[in-house]
């Protein structure tokens, strides 16, 4: 090997290391910064009580409830729809104009900024369908927003299942539906879950799409037709309107911790599932 090649190799290794370290560094810095400012505010009463004085004091319980209600409902709507579409595209149609159109639609949807979804949700769900500012309107909007991600990742996961599984199932007399539900989906589940987790991550942290559709009330919701404020919207308002920077950081910290916790739980569930099935 000549010297230039060795030098080029060493430079490349250095640059790649630097990129990885920098990426990790930025992530750790952001997390540390938020936690550094947010953790001092945290206490049991901060997460178990309702806010007072517009959030200057008191806790953030309604926004935690609102965030999770919206996210769970959005996932409950988008997951069956998205996985169903993915199954349709992969198992029930041959590649052709129809699958190309659906796929193109899903991909275009994925690139639309969330504020556009917010505006659409406001016009369609809130005004036209008369659902008002509510958990339902917000969840429907979020579902539309995360649907492309779920379709895309589910489709890839389903395509990655070896054809031999389908072949065996058909050869044993399984119908297409039995083949999909018993032979294909169990193997595709970890991949599908990844898509659902990505969607969940986007939902939990979403601001623009929900501020238009779920409202920003600080009352504790009692049904899906009630408006809510999410954690993300809450700290946006706290910071934007200068109500309380410490509480904004506290809310952000809870949000970050929730996302991490949810990801860890999902990862753990997935590992358990994989361990059982391979």
């Amino acid at each position: 090997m000549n010297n230039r090649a060795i030098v080029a190799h060493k430079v490349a290794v250095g640059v790649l290391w630097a990129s990885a370290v920098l990426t990790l560094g930025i992530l750790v810095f952001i997390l540390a910064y938020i936690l550094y400012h947010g953790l001092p505010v945290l206490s049991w009463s901060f997460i178990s009580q309702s806010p007072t004085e517009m959030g200057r004091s008191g806790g953030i319980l309604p926004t935690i409830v609102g965030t999770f209600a919206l996210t769970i409902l959005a996932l409950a709507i988008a997951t069956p729809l998205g996985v169903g579409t993915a199954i349709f595209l992969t198992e029930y149609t041959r590649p052709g104009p129809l699958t190309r159109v659906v796929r193109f639609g899903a991909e275009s949807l994925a690139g639309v900024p969330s504020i556009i979804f917010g505006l659409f949700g406001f016009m369609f769900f809130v005004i036209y369908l008369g659902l008002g500012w509510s958990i339902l309107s917000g969840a429907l909007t979020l579902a539309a927003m995360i649907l492309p991600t779920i379709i895309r990742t589910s489709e890839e996961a389903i395509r990655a299942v070896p054809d031999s599984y389908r072949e065996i199932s058909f050869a044993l007399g399984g119908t297409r539906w039995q083949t999909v539900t018993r032979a294909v989906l169990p193997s595709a589940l970890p991949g599908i879950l990844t898509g659902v987790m990505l969607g969940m991550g986007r939902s939990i942290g979403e601001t623009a799409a929900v501020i238009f559709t779920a409202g920003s009330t600080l009352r504790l919701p009692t049904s899906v037709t009630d408006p809510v404020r999410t954690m993300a919207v809450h700290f946006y308002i706290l910071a934007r309107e200068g109500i309380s920077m410490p509480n904004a950081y506290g809310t952000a910290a809870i949000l970050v911790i929730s996302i991490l916790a949810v990801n860890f739980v999902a990862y753990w569930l997935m590992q358990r599932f994989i361990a059982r099935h391979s």
Partner: protein
Amino acid sequence: MAIRQPNELHPKVEVKDLDLYYGQHQALKKVSLTFYANQVTAIIGPSGCGKSTLLRCLNRMNDTIPGIRVEGRVALDGTDIYGRRQDLTRLRKSVGMVFQRPNVFPLSILDNVAYGPKVHGLKDRARLSEIVERSLAAVGLWGEVRERLNVSALELSLGNRQLLCLARLVAVEPEVILLDEPASALDPISTLRIEELMRELQKEYTIIIVTHNMQQAARASDRTAFMLSGELVEYGETRQIFTNPRDTRTERYVTGKL
């Protein structure tokens, strides 16, 4: 096992003037032959001669391939399986298939064997475990795996996986078993085990095996069909095909000169 006299033979699967086209390419040309009940029939021939394609016509596994066209008649017990009213699920329950790769589901040994019966609507757990035991015993695997039925099937050796595939098939109680080069991925000992098993299973099932391995066809089959470029060249008792072939192409192939 002695070859039965022709007057004892019952036709099980009858193929008549079968043509198969992949788009423009004709993969099977006017193939006609009869597979007899409780016989092991081997289909041999060089790669691409259409032997696997013919096998896959017998349970209509070719149906899933786009752009395929089948003409002619394949009858199971006298009923045309390409008939308009044929139920594919029923057909594949009667005519089961084991593939070249020992493909198991990434499920437990138990769930692999129970897959077929469950697909056909059996829910009763006691009945299921009875079937699982009987099927694993039929392929000689019960003693080895009885203590670890809940272990993933992927932990079995390749040879045992292929036996598991056979057990999984036996569990749906087929009448005809199609084997598509079942031993080509296996070591010699597992291969012999599969061959012995075919002899055992032939008492209850009609067995049709596609193989590259001429010793295997000579050892383990009662009748042999030789195919070349989509045509059936010669079909007869295995001993006759290997010792006294009528067609020079068959002779050249079985003596390794083709």
